[in-house]
């Protein structure tokens, strides 16, 4: 509502910015707008900030000169100088002390390790998409890191390893954030002051510095988010010149950056939503423009489909293709994937697998569920707790490869022939599966399963293979007939419980703590053939049978893609907070309630603590509140038809349009965390914080006098980011003495 109102006002004041600016020119000759006013003399609403950025275009050459002259006259540094200042400060603050501390900090242990995996081409599994880690690996590779450092735990010394390249790469990307923020705000508000305030807020934010300086995904993610927003803003600015080269350029850049953001973390989805909403709104505007024919609108629509949907999708899929091509050696992530997938990996026991071809009695096997991200049939010494069915040994599905996944195949009547070649298992045979480690039999009975109450419980029962009749299972090859042999790896097998007639089933639900958060295995009375009730025999060890080389059907690329996404999503939602781990709540974040310890606990250690510059963050929060109040007042006034005067009108429009966009960005990057069940950390707030800071920048120009407090504050708090040693903050003599303003800060 407010927006529409704003636009009508906008249109009243003049259709193009030239008119508007001309109108305000006499009023604001000594204000900061001068350079931009002077530049934008052609009808296309190009602005000073933009022309200063890419002044290679000949058409703007003269105006750029004019702008320099004009600004010299009004004692205002030219925009290019300002930009250079921002760039210089930004890079110097981010790259300062980049190699300190010379040990692994916090999540570097994960992402550094994953970068090494790329260099070593070892397959791994992570809950985030691969682009960020690929770039880290690439940066390391280029700067001469050989991938040999193990990154075992935080605090490990790097010694002679070349880690600065990876850190430097992240820091460089992180340095772009203030620059992008500067350009975005300049574009939205046409004010150098506002842009400069924004940039300085970000440059001197201790949190932004800390998070940019280490081998983390966040600087990469934020780089793409900001780049996407910048291209979107630039693209919006080109709306009067559709289908020209810059228009296409920015459109394509949006698409590339969206793919990049999504390729680093799924948080990139939020910026996609932001761009999507903006695009929908833009298309809606075009649709209402009756001077455009339907064909034109269709062209617009198709251009956006190509630029914002197909192109990012293509890039995103390509990233995965590279990921799968690069990582072709077996590694720690194998067990999460299906047998077919594993056969692609060099070094995996399924790669060019060689094992007895048909399932036989006396073999040791692992059994893997066929649903996507289904685990291995697993058991361990622990019992089901009281109140959960019978108090017998747990049977679960487990995603990692483990000796507890091994099972022995026995005949119903325990007498295995010791001589000669063992008998083969056939469709319809009745077998007993004995857990190799604990010698209990796979067992089911008429107790309800722990989570899926309509199913029966599956347990380990008996000792040394002696159990009862509830341990008998009938083997059924899907699509097979009586007497068919069971092919290892290729046959889909179902295990029907003899006594109750139910079928062995993996529900995919995660057991609570007593079950070690492994996946529930049940016996389902519903005999429908679903992947959840189908299993395949993966490992098959029988010394008395000849090993035969087996070729497993190679999966299609799209199948791999789908599979890895489902596994990633499962993994993400499976990241539940642990009990003794500090659990950060979303409401902690904007008030800077609690930081994150990057490195070091004790007095002697080199400590780095991720905490936003409190003055900046609290100012951001206050501005947000003030912004809402102002917009509410302004829109009520507009709705009520009060006249605000042309200058105020223009301010209100900038606040509502530019600020509205940024507010939407903040909401989209913040609110969804409230609904997430997974474990959350303080650094999840940083993308939202960028939007909030830009809002502060826009707003502060119009409302607040600019306080230089945050510079002082930066000086006070800089040891947090650049590291400190010596006594803890609550003791006198520390670098941070007296700065522990909140009890919850832990430096």
């Amino acid at each position, binding site marked *: *509502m407010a927006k529409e109102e704003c636009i009508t006002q906008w249109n009243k004041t003049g259709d193009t910015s030239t008119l508007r600016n001309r109108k305000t020119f006499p009023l604001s000759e000594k204000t900061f707008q001068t350079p931009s006013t002077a530049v934008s003399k052609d009808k296309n609403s190009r602005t000073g900030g933009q022309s200063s950025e890419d002044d290679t275009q000949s058409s703007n050459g003269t105006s750029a000169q004019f702008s320099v002259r004009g600004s010299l006259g009004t004692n205002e540094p030219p925009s290019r100088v300002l930009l250079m200042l921002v760039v210089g400060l930004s890079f110097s603050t981010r790259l300062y002390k980049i190699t300190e501390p010379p040990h692994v900090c916090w999540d570097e242990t994960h992402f550094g390790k994953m970068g090494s995996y790329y260099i070593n081409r070892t397959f791994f599994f992570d809950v985030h998409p691969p682009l960020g880690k690929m770039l880290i690996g690439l940066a390391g590779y280029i700067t001469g890191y050989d991938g040999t450092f193990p990154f075992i735990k935080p605090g490990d010394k790097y010694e002679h390893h070349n880690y600065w390249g990876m850190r430097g790469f992240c820091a460089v990307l992180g340095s772009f954030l203030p620059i992008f923020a500067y350009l975005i705000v300049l574009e939205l508000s046409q004010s150098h002051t506002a842009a400069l305030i924004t940039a300085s807020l970000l440059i001197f934010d201790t949190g932004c510095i800390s998070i940019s300086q280490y081998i983390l995904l966040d600087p990469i993610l934020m780089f793409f988010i900001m780049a996407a927003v910048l291209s979107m803003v630039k693209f919006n600015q080109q709306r009067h010149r559709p289908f020209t080269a810059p228009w296409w350029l920015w459109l394509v850049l949006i698409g590339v950056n969206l793919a990049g953001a999504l390729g680093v973390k799924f948080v990139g989805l939020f910026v996609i939503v932001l761009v999507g909403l903006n695009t929908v709104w833009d298309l*809606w505007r075009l*649709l*209402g423009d*009756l001077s455009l024919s*339907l064909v034109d609108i269709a062209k617009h629509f198709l251009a956006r489909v190509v630029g914002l949907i197909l192109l990012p999708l293509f890039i995103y899929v390509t990233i995965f293709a590279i990921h799968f091509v690069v990582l072709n050696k077996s590694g720690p992530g194998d067990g999460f994937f299906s047998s077919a997938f594993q056969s692609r990996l060099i070094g995996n026991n399924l790669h060019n697998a060689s094992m007895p071809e048909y399932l036989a009695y006396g073999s040791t096997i692992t059994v893997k569920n066929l649903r996507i991200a289904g685990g291995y049939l697993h058991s361990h010494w622990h019992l089901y707790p009281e109140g959960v069915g019978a108090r017998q040994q747990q049977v679960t599905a487990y995603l990692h490869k483990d000796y507890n996944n091994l099972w022995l195949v026995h005949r119903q009547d325990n007498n295995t022939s010791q001589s000669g070649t063992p008998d083969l298992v056939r469709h319809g045979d009745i077998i007993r599966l004995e857990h190799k480690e604990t010698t209990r039999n796979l067992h089911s009975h008429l107790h309800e399963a722990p*989570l*899926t*109450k*309509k199913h029966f419980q599956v347990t380990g029962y008996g000792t040394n293979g002696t159990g009862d009749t509830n341990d008998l299972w009938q083997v059924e090859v899907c699509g097979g007939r009586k007497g068919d042999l069971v092919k290892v790896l290729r046959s889909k097998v179902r295990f029907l419980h003899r006594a109750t007639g139910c079928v062995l089933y993996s529900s995919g639900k995660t057991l609570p703590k007593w079950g070690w958060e492994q996946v529930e295995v049940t016996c389902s009375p519903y005999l429908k053939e679903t992947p959840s009730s189908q299993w395949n025999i993966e490992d098959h060890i029988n010394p008395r049978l000849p090993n035969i080389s087996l070729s497993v059907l190679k999966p299609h690329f799209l199948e791999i893609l789908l599979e890895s996404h489902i596994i990633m999503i499962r993994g993400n939602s499976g990241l539940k907070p642990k*009990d*003794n781990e*500090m659990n950060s709540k979303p409401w902690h974040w904007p008030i800077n309630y*609690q930081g994150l310890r990057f490195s070091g606990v004790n007095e002697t250690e080199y400590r780095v603590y991720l905490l936003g510059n409190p003055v900046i963050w609290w100012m951001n929060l206050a501005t947000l509140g003030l912004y809402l109040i102002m917009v509410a007042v302004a829109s*009520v006034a507009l*709705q*009520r*038809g009060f006249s605000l005067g042309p200058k105020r009108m223009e301010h209100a429009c900038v606040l509502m349009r530019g600020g509205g966009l940024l507010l939407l960005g903040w909401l989209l990057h913040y609110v969804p965390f409230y*609904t997430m*069940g997974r474990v959350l950390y303080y650094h999840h707030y940083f993308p939202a914080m960028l939007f909030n800071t830009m809002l502060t920048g826009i707003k502060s120009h119009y409302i607040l006098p600019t306080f230089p407090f945050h510079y002082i504050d930066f000086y006070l708090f800089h040891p947090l980011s650049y590291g400190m040693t010596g006594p803890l903050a609550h003791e006198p003599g520390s670098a941070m003495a007296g700065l522990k303003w909140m*009890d*919850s800060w*832990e430096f």
Partner: protein
Amino acid sequence: MAGDVETRGCVSGIRVAESRISRLEMLQRPLVVTAQVDLVLVLVSVLALWTRLSHLSYPNAVVFDEVYYGQFVSLYMKRVFFIDDSGPPLGHMILALGAYLGGFDGNFVWNRIGAEYPSSVSVWSLRLLPALCGALCVPLVYLLTLELRFSHLSALGAALLLLLENSLIVQSRFMLLESVLIFFVLLAFFSYLRFHNTPDSSWFRYSWLLLCGASCAAAVGVKYMGVFSYLLLLGVASLHTWNLIGDQTVSVCVQCVCRFVCLLVVPVLLYVFWFYIHLSLLNRSGPHDQLMSSAFQASLQGGLSRITQGQPLEVAYGSQVTLRSSASQPIPCWLHSHKANYPIRYENGRGSSHQQQVTCYPFKDVNNWWIVKDPGSQELVVGSPPRPVRHGDVIQLVHGMTSRFLNSHDVAAPMSPHAQEVSGYINFNVSMAAQNLWRVDISNREAESEVWKTILSEVRLVHVNTSAVLKLSGVSLPDWGFRQLEVVAEKLFKGHSSSLGWTVEEHRYGISQEQKEREAELHSPTHIDVDRKISFWAKFLELQWKMLTVKQEDSEHKYSSSPLEWITMETNIAYWLHSSTNAQIHLIGNPVSWGVANLSLLAYQLLAAVYLLRRRRGFKDLPDGVWCQFVRLGCVCVGGWVVNFVPFLLMEKTLFLYHYLPALCYLYLLSPALLEHAHTHLLSNVTHRRALCVCVAAMLSSVFLSYRTFCPLTYGSPELSANQLQGLRWRDTWDILYRRR
């Protein structure tokens, strides 16, 4: 058909027309009373009452969730305090009101579904109020459609759809809350629209707004789910207000304030009022006491207040105390120790101090007693005058029965190895000195030198040597620890957690120095009346907070379902099965109506999209008035469906088919209105219109037929044979029970 009744006066209200010319003339003229009665409205009301109220006391057995709500009704009758996390108390109180009117004394054990009610229980009155609410929904829907500015035929259609909806009938006929919720939600929307449609001049219309606010409060008070509809209503109202602000011909200040008060202030106050009634009714202690803080418990009759009455308020050196953990998770418990030591080695090979175990024990026990000792003196008795312990004082805690000192040291705790072990100190001469000094840190203090008070103070015990805090870790110890809960000391730099707080619950001043005599019960002269110390607001906030945070064990129910199954009705719920025959009651909707509802939802969205796009291109298919009507229909009906359905997709609780019923009601409002829209504005051809009429007639009759078909499963009679039941199983996923004979 009462189509000739004027559009606005469609109420069954009575108007008194008086001639006010002169007294003389008045005497000459007869006194005339004109009454306008909408016969259709009366008819559907009567039918609704008949379908919902007939044979209400059959089956004379506990049906489905009656087993759950019944226990609360009993507790209301006995005025025993309870806490139910499923919803605010108004719903329970309405059910209890029915029970109270029927003379139910609360003496019935609600232990299983299908249990027969004894003759002393008036089943009819227990079920009466929900059934009445369910029946009144039908005329409300009729009126609501009229307020949406659709015709009487549409209104009749909506009423018929609701009337013949088997699932709504089932849900209304038992002691359940959905029908009450739906009633209040519909009432809120009806009264709001009535307010909105009444011309500005009359002040009487604000009583409609007030009614709207009250029914919103009631809807939220019955179930939290009512919040969704309330928010939608607020959205619609704020949109109207926004337009009002834009209207520069009227002054809006007073109007805005009125709306604000009626739609925001009044509901909040009423919501708190429900809790006020709830808390004033329930003043006796009961099974859920232990979830609440000690101060809350002490305000209830019986229970803790009986123990704590007359005990001294201020904890002094020499006091004998029991310390209750402020955490109610996993269960409330008291700091405990006993004559058993930590095993030398745990199962995983880690070593322990082998000193005496300190645990948290969920039952009252003599081993829960500790004595507060001044480290500077050997006295274990209270001096005269008593020397109170203040915030920041350093104390020792001596276990009453074993005389061991509460101790902590740099040894990993048994189950949480990141934290320190807490033990009763035994000197084994292994150069492990006692570290038994604790600093009292009163976290809810008002002044720095606050005295440690019984029940009221929440203290943290900070270990002086290591500055770790005594904490309940919540993990159960293995068999060697008798499955009691582990207590640890943990170094914490941050924040507040209820597992760190401890409250003195039982307290007496110790006067006997001898170990043997120490267990004697002693009372001191200082009396306090704890009851007055806790205000209603404190109780309300604590109760509301506990209700929102207490988590029940999330267990899957046999008939639980996922929201996407509701749309296509893939699922049903068996409510009741006769103990010997095949007579049974199921929550199954009317399949035809559900299909119609889904179709109309789709059709509306499609139509809206087409209209919107075309309007944007400058084609005005509908005149502005009709467009407004169409938009309002969408806001209320489609919006209502969305807000009552989509949130469930994000929820992780156990969900049932009946959660869909409020959303379904909105769709039933939508269908006939949409048909009318199609009839008047989309079809210009007479033949097409006739065809539509025929379709509608066919649809209504098939709705009626399928209602008839499922009646046996709705009312539980007549009993069907296995074959007939099999025939009713229209979907494979329905779970209909057969009794094998």
